[in-house]
């Protein structure tokens, strides 16, 4: 049983070994460091094999999860920083997905980055003398960063506590920084790298606050129970815990143990506890003892008394709930940054400055999905209010990003906005209670989006341009790329025969829409219904911009004859990974035995991993005690009615979008220019990316600079001026002191003394007669006098 963490741990550490080797010996690995790629591929490929073995072993294990610690970094009385693991089905599935895609992309990168094997002339950097920059290649460096990235990403997935997650969270951030800024000579690249890191730091600020709230109130960072110590999850949902004595022991440790309320409540629970476990009744979210205690402390400090009945009343009023909300929102803040959700989405499109394999691996399939993954991992802790916030943010992002993708002409940026939009779908799904739907979409999206990015990279590799206005008619030149990309496009729009079978995206998108529909029906609220329509409409926009991209790239007349002439299909090392990924993009979520989508192996596995398994809607009450928000239970959406409706709506909207794209870009029934002219203001608004960059620049960046310059001015001129003047004043005072007091008084005294001594000297000159006898007398008298003085003066 303990072999699984060991296997995954080894899979996790292999890329670190590869990173270290390339760091130390990279330039000496084969010709121009070419062997570095073999090392990196070996490491990640080995990781994939180990993950697969772990996946097969996992099927024989009954435990919902395995948790443990490998190494303790530092320990204080209550704070323990450890490297540990938390392995459940989600962990194992994510491991397989990440290592598989990363292996494909490593192979692909060998072909894509081959220019880096010799000196590179960078056409995007023009030097002062008008020539282009030439620099040595950095082939091994690229694989070094990729390995470090894989290590960090797998670290997030395997992480057993939220502090360790944060550590690797930052590490993937810095890998992303290095990879976006791989072409460091390009100003746009290094600016994008900075932007990505700093914007992420803003999200991390929220995450730190969330972390600290959890730590100060619960005293642990662990997700699961380790060595009998309760983790965060079982503190929030004690009924799921496997150790019955938790609540009792916590209460004993709490400062209000004397009142002894909690043990009583616990004893009450005890009777139906086992009934709960088997009958799958309710497992509501509770306020953990630590948070309750913290809130009680505040109450007591505010003058209320902690009597038994007060405590009971407070507990039933969910005192401390606010802390749980803050913790959830804080953690979600970090996810917003990493998964590039509104309002921190601005870094992702710029991140396309990195080489295309990086965009495929880091900025679509894995790292940006880490935010969604963490929301999924932390799901038991989120209160309904937080889930609603997640849903709203996701919904807004999916719509906003989709609209921007309509007008973008840079092929990678279209895909970047599409990624934003799909990540929005995942967040939205999680927010409305569709845990499996969201995670399923995370996996399927990883496959088809990395496929799409790699296809776009293959095209860019052929025509040496990112602009779709330079492409066209490439279907004949590069058929494999074109058809695999078509697979990707069909998968992302969720193509399929409604209610029967489809590509992977068909299943995940259906599940999301079904859950959204249930949510909209269950809560009689205009906003919730609107969110469903936005998500459904988003499917149409997705279909439109994806096929706009495909038609503009592969069909029609070549727009740039010169580039078209030189275009060619990519080498096998690049096209084979495309074929592998398109296989998974089609089949990864297909049910094998029946038409019911929930029986697909992947879906079933994820359903097994549903956290905290609460089989009831999560509800939130307002001050009056009325339920105002209810996040539905996911299995409730698996009814034929909802699935049929949602499936048909999804199919209909997607076909609508596809048809529109065909009309405009394939059959040329309408000229896109005319459409753009017709809706000029909207077109410009979308082309300007909703003007978020400009808005943030005016709202945050420029004011910060302005403010910092003012402060720097104050620092330089005012504070320093004060101090200099203080010094000058002191000096002036001293000078004054010198003239008036010194000259009159001190100098006077000194001069007077000097004059007197001079006079005495003159007087004594009379004694100096040169007469030897007189001298001897004087010496004798003096000695005797001293002797007398010494004898009588001091002895007494």
């Amino acid at each position, binding site marked *: 049983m303990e072999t699984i963490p060991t296997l995954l741990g080894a899979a996790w550490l292999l890329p670190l070994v590869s990173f270290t080797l390339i760091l130390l010996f990279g330039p000496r690995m084969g010709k121009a460091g070419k062997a570095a790629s073999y090392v990196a591929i070996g490491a990640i490929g080995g990781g994939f094999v180990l993950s697969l073995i772990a996946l097969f072993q996992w099927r024989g294990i009954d435990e919902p999860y395995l948790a443990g610690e490998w190494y*303790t*970094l*530092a*320990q*204080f*009385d209550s*704070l323990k920083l450890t490297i540990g693991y938390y392995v459940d089905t989600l962990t194992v599935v994510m491991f397989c997905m990440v290592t598989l895609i990363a292996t494909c992309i490593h192979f692909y990168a060998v072909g894509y980055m081959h220019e880096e094997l010799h000196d590179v002339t960078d056409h995007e*950097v023009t*030097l*002062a003398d008008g020539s282009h*920059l030439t*620099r040595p290649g950095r082939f091994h460096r690229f694989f070094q960063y990729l390995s470090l990235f894989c290590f960090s990403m797998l670290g997030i997935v395997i992480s057993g506590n939220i*502090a360790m997650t944060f*550590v*690797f969270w*930052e*590490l993937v951030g*810095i890998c992303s*920084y290095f990879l976006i*800024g791989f072409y*460091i*000579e*390009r*100003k746009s690249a*290094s*600016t994008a*790298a*900075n932007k990505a*890191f*700093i914007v992420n*730091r*803003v999200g*991390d*600020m929220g995450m*730190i*606050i969330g972390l*600290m*709230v959890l*730590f*100060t*109130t619960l005293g642990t960072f662990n997700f699961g129970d380790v060595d009998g110590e309760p983790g965060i999850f079982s503190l929030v949902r004690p009924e799921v815990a496997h150790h019955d004595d938790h609540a009792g022991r916590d209460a004993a440790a709490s400062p209000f143990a004397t009142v002894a309320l909690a043990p009583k409540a616990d004893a009450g629970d005890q009777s139906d506890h086992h009934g709960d476990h088997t009958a799958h009744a309710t497992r509501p979210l509770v306020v953990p003892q630590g948070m309750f205690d*913290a809130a009680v*402390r*505040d109450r*007591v*400090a*505010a*003058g209320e008394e902690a009597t038994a009945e007060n405590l009971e009343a407070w507990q039933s009023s969910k005192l401390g709930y606010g802390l749980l909300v803050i913790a959830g929102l804080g953690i979600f803040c970090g996810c917003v940054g990493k998964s590039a959700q509104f309002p921190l989405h601005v870094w992702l499109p710029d991140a396309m400055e990195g080489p295309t394999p990086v965009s495929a691996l880091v900025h679509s399939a894995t790292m940006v999905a880490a935010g969604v993954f963490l929301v999924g991992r932390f799901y038991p802790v989120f209160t309904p209010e937080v889930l609603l916030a997640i849903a709203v943010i996701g919904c807004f992002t999916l719509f906003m990003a989709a609209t921007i993708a309509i007008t973008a002409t840079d092929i990678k940026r279209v895909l970047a906005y599409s990624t934003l939009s799909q990540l929005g779908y995942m967040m939205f799904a999680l927010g409305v209670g569709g845990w499996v739907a969201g995670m399923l979409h995370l996996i399927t999206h990883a496959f088809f989006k990395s496929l799409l990015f790699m296809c776009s990279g293959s095209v860019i590799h052929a025509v040496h341009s990112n602009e779709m206005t330079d492409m066209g008619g490439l279907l004949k030149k590069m058929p494999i790329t074109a058809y695999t990309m078509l697979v990707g496009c069909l998968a992302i729009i969720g193509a399929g025969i409604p209610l029967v079978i489809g590509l992977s995206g068909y299943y995940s998108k259906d599940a999301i829409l079904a859950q959204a529909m249930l949510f909209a029906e269950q809560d009689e609220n205009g906003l919730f219904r609107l969110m469903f329509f936005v998500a459904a409409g988003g499917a149409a926009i997705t279909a439109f911009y994806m096929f706009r991209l495909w038609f503009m790239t592969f069909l029609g007349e070549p727009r740039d004859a010169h580039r078209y002439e030189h275009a060619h299909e990519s080498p096998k090392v690049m096209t084979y990974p495309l074929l592998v990924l398109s296989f998974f993009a089609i089949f990864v979520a297909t049910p094998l035995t029946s038409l019911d989508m929930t029986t697909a192996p992947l879906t079933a596995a994820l359903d097994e991993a549903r956290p905290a398994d609460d089989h009831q809607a999560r509800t939130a009450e307002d001050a009056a005690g009325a339920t105002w928000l209810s996040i539905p239970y996911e299995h409730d959406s698996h009814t034929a009615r909802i699935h049929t409706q949602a499936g048909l709506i999804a199919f209909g909207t997607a076909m609508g979008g596809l048809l529109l794209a065909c009309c405009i870009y394939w059959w040329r029934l309408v000229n896109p220019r005319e459409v753009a002219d017709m809706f000029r203001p909207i077109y410009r608004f979308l082309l300007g990316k909703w003007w978020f960059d400009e808005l943030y620049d005016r709202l945050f960046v420029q004011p*910060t*600079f302005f*403010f*910092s*310059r003012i*402060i*720097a001015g104050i*620092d330089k001129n005012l*504070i*320093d001026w004060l*101090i200099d003047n203080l*010094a000058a004043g002191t000096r002036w005072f001293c000078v004054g002191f010198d003239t008036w007091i010194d000259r009159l008084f001190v100098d006077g005294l000194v001069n007077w003394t000097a004059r007197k001594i001079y006079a005495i000297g003159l007087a004594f000159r009379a004694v100096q007669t040169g007469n030897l006898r007189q001298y001897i007398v004087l010496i004798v008298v003096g000695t005797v006098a001293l002797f007398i003085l010494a004898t009588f003066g001091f002895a007494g």
Partner: protein
Amino acid sequence: MWETIAAPPFLLLVSLAMPLWGALVILLTCRNDAASARLLALFFAVATLVAATGVVVQFPTDQPAAQANYAAAALPWLGEATGLDIRFDVAVDGLSLWLYGLSALLVLTAVLISWTTVREREAGYYGLLLLLAGGMLGVFMARDVILFYIFFEFTLIPLFVLIGIWGSDRRRYAAVKFFLFTLAGSLLTFLGLLLLVLQYDTFSIPELTARAMASPLDPAWQTAIFLLLFAGFAIKVPLFPLHTWLPLAHVEAPAAGSVLLAGVLLKIGTYGFLRFSVPLLPEATATLLPWLLWLSVAGIVYGALVALAQSDLKRLIAYSSVSHLGFCMLGLFALNRLGIQGGVLQSINHGISTGGLFAIVGMIYRRYHTREISELGGLARRTPWLAAFMVFFTLSSIGLPGTNGFAGEFLLLCGMFQRASATTAAAYSTQFYAIAVLAVSGVVLGAWYMLWLVQRVFFGPLREPTHDDQPIRDMGWSEFFSLAPLAVFVLWIGLFPGQFLKPMSATLDRLTGRATAAWEQQAEAAARTDAAELADRGQNSPQRAESPPR
């Protein structure tokens, strides 16, 4: 034989004597011989480091009882002549251990980065550098108030001369300002120390601590003395708004001066707070705690914002020091284990990473004779190793996990949040949460100004000022070996922070226990006052009157 040589007290004395003796030798014999001055300086720096390493590795981490008198060596000294019990008494404990080790390490860095940069009056330069080193090491080992103060001032004079002679254009102004500013503060501190000595009738610091713990002074007295001590220590740290001497001194100082100034001399301030103010004046610490925290967090945000506006490399890093030292102070005054240990660790970290950054700026200056960010660009192409080190130390400075910066920052933020959450009195808890959140914002700003700096100077197409003397080369061996040990420690502390925290924990607990207790009492009293007030108001209000009595 070996036991005698390896005995900690002996090694401690050697590590103090080596730089002082070296200074004497160089000043007397190498007047016109630059090469041997350099070599001798290197020899004595290495000897100091070896002796100091011997002291540090033998520290009895697992036996807290043995730590109190570890490596203690004492002589009667002035006692006989004056009739006062002033002794030459040195030792290291958990608080001074790492600061002492850091000082010995940075002396080597300082000598190595001066290797190629200093080209005039070498004998005097290296002599003063070693003299400064002796003073620094002495401050951290002194166990007598007078001895401490002598070393405290002793660090001042060599640096004053170093800035004044080997500095850049406005060196005179900078040197005088640095000197007067620090001297003014330290005289007040001395007065405070003397008052303490008079109260407790001993010059010995351990004895003073023991007596102060047994019978604390009257709170009003404590506050007065605290403020006197504060004057000197806060200027050294420097705490906002007493920081204006720092950027100037840094900009004008030679590279080695900047390294030692940032790496060690600023830490004397934090050390002083922990050695004297907090243990000897616990009630005053508790009373002034919110103010101290506000000053620290103001320094964090202020330093970061001003750094963002700088156009001079050295100035930018100098202001980043203000921000980072704010973090250290925040940790100390969180007054719990996490915060204090995090704060001390962070002050070591700052010494390592900012020391490294200043050394790198010195290397850039040596090559281009400019520190203007706008005149430089794309240096990664010309000097890849230098760029790699710069990026590395930047990552440490912005607190990337795996580097030392993360360990310190994370712990002290944990400490601050813990303090905020443990404080229930309404008057304080809101403030403390605000302080904690503001401090976290410093993390964002820190990443902003540092990464932006790296981008402008090292990335992009190559842009160099015209330089006619010699071709620009990447790092030489002396430069490489000046930074490599620091880089090793960046990772070592980052990956195994426990090893560095454990030796200090017992001492720090002992020194700060009383202050923590005093603060907790005060906060509890405030909470009770809150409660009473609320109850009062409740009884007068009509709603409460209507509710049935319990």
